[in-house]
């Protein structure tokens, strides 16, 4: 500031800059191009050689070439996603290393690394990564502290890192206040760079191949906790996400986008509703999961005519929301409109004649539509259908091929076939895609739904009842519904095939399974309490815990905590700066002198205990023995035994002095 020459970079800080930067960059492996690491190694090498005096700093030509080449390389491979933006930042930090000679350059590097350390959270949010990142922050703070440490004594690294840890701990309370109370506003602008990492999950087109692939993934889809109504029976756990209404002959897709209704305000669930809370992983889509019949409770969540929940923006971050399920048997709200009827009866011309024939044949045998549907379901049960994740490739008329030829498939095949047959005889039907079941954590009372729980089933319209759920898969593989995919595939052995190292695969190893479940519990709590704290949660927290009904009040609290923070700091500073309190012995001695002052014995600076006591004896000779012994005791304690820290001795001495003081007061009285 006032110095003309910028402060130079402290030599001892450089290794720490390189160390902390390496640590931060290591966390980005897989997210930034590998050649950047090569660049980093080169930069570290060059800078270390400069540090040792073997090499000079790169001149401006070299720097220009490196900067241009690096930028070109990043732009060439850029896809305008989060990864390339991060690569840019990282490269900037690396190139800055090459010209880091002053303290101010160190600030730039360290601050950039703080930012990169924050960016890591956009890719990874698990508790493990959080702990790793904590160490990164700690290293970066240590680097900063070290750069301002002039102490060259041994043990300075220990002191520096300790100081960094102390700083982090001391700032924790204020951080928590801000974390919970700082108003969480929505994204400032919509266009944010997204990661190009493929998100696993459902898609709005049902390809049997997709679902087969999903079934191999143990990745988390969402977790659910239920309110006091508890968890429904496992067979009822149908998590709806999509309605696939359009059949092309090769696949089912969601064509029709029905009207959405958005609630005006947040609502409490009624007693007739079962409410549950879902923490959903990022899907990159705007659909949410719910059980039918669903009701929305939150302002930001809309519901469409198909009873499906939607958000306004695609879910790119883990989302936590509350949903209700109506438990009362509600009558259908309305009849199908012509448009809807047409939609749910849509079929491509000229496909699957045999299936159509079968449906018509069964229709003639049945009196009502319900009976017909029963017969269709029974058909799956009675015929030799089998459940497999490795179906054979089907021909042009795939449903015909499946029903009469291969007779083996999984949910997508069964649901597609049933819907097709129902539609072919004029019954409105639709395929619903979502998840079924989940793993119940008994201790923590939550349900974990994974990608391999992906499922497809059928909903069929009955004017008296509305949409009814039919799951033909249950007819074929009851285990799939009652116990989950693993049981259903027990015979075939194809569960998590190819995922050798997935812990899901080793559920039978008891301790491993136990470990897996506890890890899952930790992650669940982490997600529930930390990661999914958004403005809804914040509002709830403010209202329920702090009793606020307006978010401005939290600003008052923040302001108040700032005041408290500075008050505490001032008090601590004052405490530190105040004159050191005299020891108890000196206090007692001073009291004695104050008392003796009233007897006319003025204390003199520079007087020894013996000298003072001799004067005291002259003033009150009747206490000679007592004064003598006290002086003797003090002298012995302080000088002969040299034990000023001996508490017992000190106590005894203080007692004598107090006793003497009292005697002197008695005399006066």
């Amino acid at each position, binding site marked *: 500031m006032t110095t003309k020459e910028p402060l130079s970079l402290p030599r001892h800080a450089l290794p720490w800059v390189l160390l902390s930067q390496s640590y931060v960059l290591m966390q980005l492996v897989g997210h930034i191009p590998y050649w950047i690491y090569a660049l980093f190694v080169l930069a570290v090498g060059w800078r270390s050689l400069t540090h040792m005096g073997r090499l000079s700093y790169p001149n401006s030509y070299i720097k220009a070439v490196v900067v241009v080449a690096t930028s070109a390389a990043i732009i060439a491979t850029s896809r305008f996603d989060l990864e390339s933006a991060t690569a840019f930042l990282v490269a900037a930090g690396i190139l800055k290393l090459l010209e880091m000679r002053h303290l101010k350059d160190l600030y730039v590097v360290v601050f950039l690394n703080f930012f990169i350390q924050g960016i890591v959270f956009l890719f990874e949010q698990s508790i493990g990564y959080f702990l790793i990142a904590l160490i990164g922050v700690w290293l970066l703070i240590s680097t900063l502290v070290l750069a301002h440490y002039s102490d060259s004594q041994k043990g300075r690294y220990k002191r520096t890192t300790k100081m960094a840890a102390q700083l982090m701990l001391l700032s924790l309370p204020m951080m928590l206040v801000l974390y919970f109370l700082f108003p969480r506003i929505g994204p400032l602008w919509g266009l944010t760079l997204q990661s190009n990492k493929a998100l696993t999950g459902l898609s709005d087109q049902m390809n049997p191949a997709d679902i087969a692939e999903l079934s191999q993934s143990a990745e988390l889809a969402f977790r659910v906790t239920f309110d006091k109504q508890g968890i429904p029976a496992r067979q009822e756990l149908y998590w709806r996400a999509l309605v696939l209404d359009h059949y092309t002959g090769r696949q089912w897709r969601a064509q029709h986008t029905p009207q959405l209704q958005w609630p005006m305000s947040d609502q409490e669930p009624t007693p007739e509703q079962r409410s549950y809370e879902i923490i959903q992983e990022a899907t990159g889509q705007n659909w949410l999961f719910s059980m039918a019949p669903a009701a929305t409770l939150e302002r930001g969540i809309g519901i469409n005519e198909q009873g499906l929940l939607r958000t306004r923006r695609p879910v790119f971050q883990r989302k936590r929301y509350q949903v209700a399920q109506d438990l009362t048997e509600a009558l259908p709200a309305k009849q199908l409109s012509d448009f809807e009827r047409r939609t749910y009866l849509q079929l491509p011309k000229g496909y699957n004649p045999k299936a159509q024939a079968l449906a018509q044949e069964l229709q003639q045998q049945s009196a009502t539509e319900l009976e017909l549907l029963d017969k269709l379901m029974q058909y799956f049960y009675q015929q030799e259908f089998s459940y497999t994740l490795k179906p054979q490739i089907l021909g042009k008329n795939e449903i015909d091929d499946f029903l009469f030829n291969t007779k083996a498939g999984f949910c997508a095949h069964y649901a597609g076939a049933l819907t097709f047959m129902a539609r072919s005889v004029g019954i409105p039907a639709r395929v619903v895609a979502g998840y079924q079941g989940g793993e119940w954590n008994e201790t923590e009372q939550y349900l974990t739904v994974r990608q391999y729980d992906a499922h497809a089933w059928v909903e069929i319209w009955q004017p008296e009842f509305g949409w009814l759920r039919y799951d033909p898969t249950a007819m074929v593989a009851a285990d799939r519904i009652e116990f989950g995919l693993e049981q259903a595939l027990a015979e075939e052995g194809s569960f998590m095939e190819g995922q050798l190292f997935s812990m899901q695969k080793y559920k039978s190893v008891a301790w491993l399974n136990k470990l897996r479940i506890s890890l899952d519990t930790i992650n669940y709590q982490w997600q529930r309490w930390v990661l999914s704290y958004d403005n809804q949660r914040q509002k709830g927290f403010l209202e329920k815990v702090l009793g606020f009904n307006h978010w401005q009040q939290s600003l008052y609290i923040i302001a108040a905590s700032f005041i408290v923070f500075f008050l505490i700091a001032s008090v601590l500073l004052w405490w530190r700066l105040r004159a050191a309190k005299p020891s108890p012995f000196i206090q007692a001695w001073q009291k004695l002198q104050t008392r003796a002052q009233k007897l006319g014995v003025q204390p003199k*600076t*520079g007087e*020894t205990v013996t000298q003072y006591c001799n004067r005291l004896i002259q003033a009150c000779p009747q206490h000679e023995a007592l004064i003598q012994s006290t002086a003797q005791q003090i002298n012995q304690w*302080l*000088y002969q035994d040299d034990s000023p820290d001996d508490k017992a001795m000190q106590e005894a001495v203080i007692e004598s002095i107090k006793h003497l003081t009292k005697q002197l007061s008695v005399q006066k009285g």
Partner: protein
Amino acid sequence: MTAIQSVLGQLNQVILGKENQTKLALSCLLAKGHLLIEDLPGMGKTTLSHGLASVLGLSYNRIQFTSDLLPADILGVSIFEQDPTSQQGSFRFHPGPVFSQVLLADEINRATPKAQSALLEAMEEAQVTIEGETRPLPTPFFVIATQNPISSSGTFPLPESQLDRFLMCIELGYPSEQAERLLLEGKDQREIAKRLKTELTLDKLLALQEQVEQVKASSSVLDYLQRIVAYTRYEAGYQYGLSPRGALALLRSAKAWAVVNDGREYLVPEDIQAVLPAVVDHRLSQAAASNKQKVSQDILQHVPVLQ
């Protein structure tokens, strides 16, 4: 009656009414330091030094410093001597008066700085180097230098840095009326001093010096000492403060005082206070030139003993 008490008793026979000074002089010897006596002529400086030498059974020499004194007069010279029988000649070293256990350097400020520094170097190093040969001085080696405080023409007062070489600097002062009468009634004190009984052997003396070093200084006493040092350095308005050597000198003297005064094995603040004027005043007199008050008095009045 301990050895020290009898030594003091003997000394007080010849130097009447100066118990404090004799104790200080003895302390100075036991602390392996050298003594500077600043006083007018005829105050008994010679008597004290001579008495000390005879009571302790030490060899004694006296040099009267004059303006024409040469270093060789103090240290000794090599003289070419011819053996009458063989006609062979050789240089033989004739040791100067410095080769004695107690040396009285009378009126040191009358000699030229070169002569002074010859003695001071010998004091500092306890050895003498003459014409390239190093000869050790006897142990103990105790110099009592006297200086006439009244500055007169043709004198060379010892500079500050040289004063530091003397552990203590004392004044004898006029005797009390009583002592003066005894002095007048009695015999020549110098004669008595010559005939004093030797009370200590060399071994005993060295043992006493060892005992001085064993005196324990508690942390409370050291705190007090450090407060004194800090006071001279930072608080009092002196131009400079007590050097680390000065601080060590104070501690060493106080330890010797503890032994001489009551044979104690530990230090009390009174010991420091007792030797303070002798140790500190001559070191800081110029630093505190503006003050009328003596430095030691200033310290005693301003540095708290307990804190």
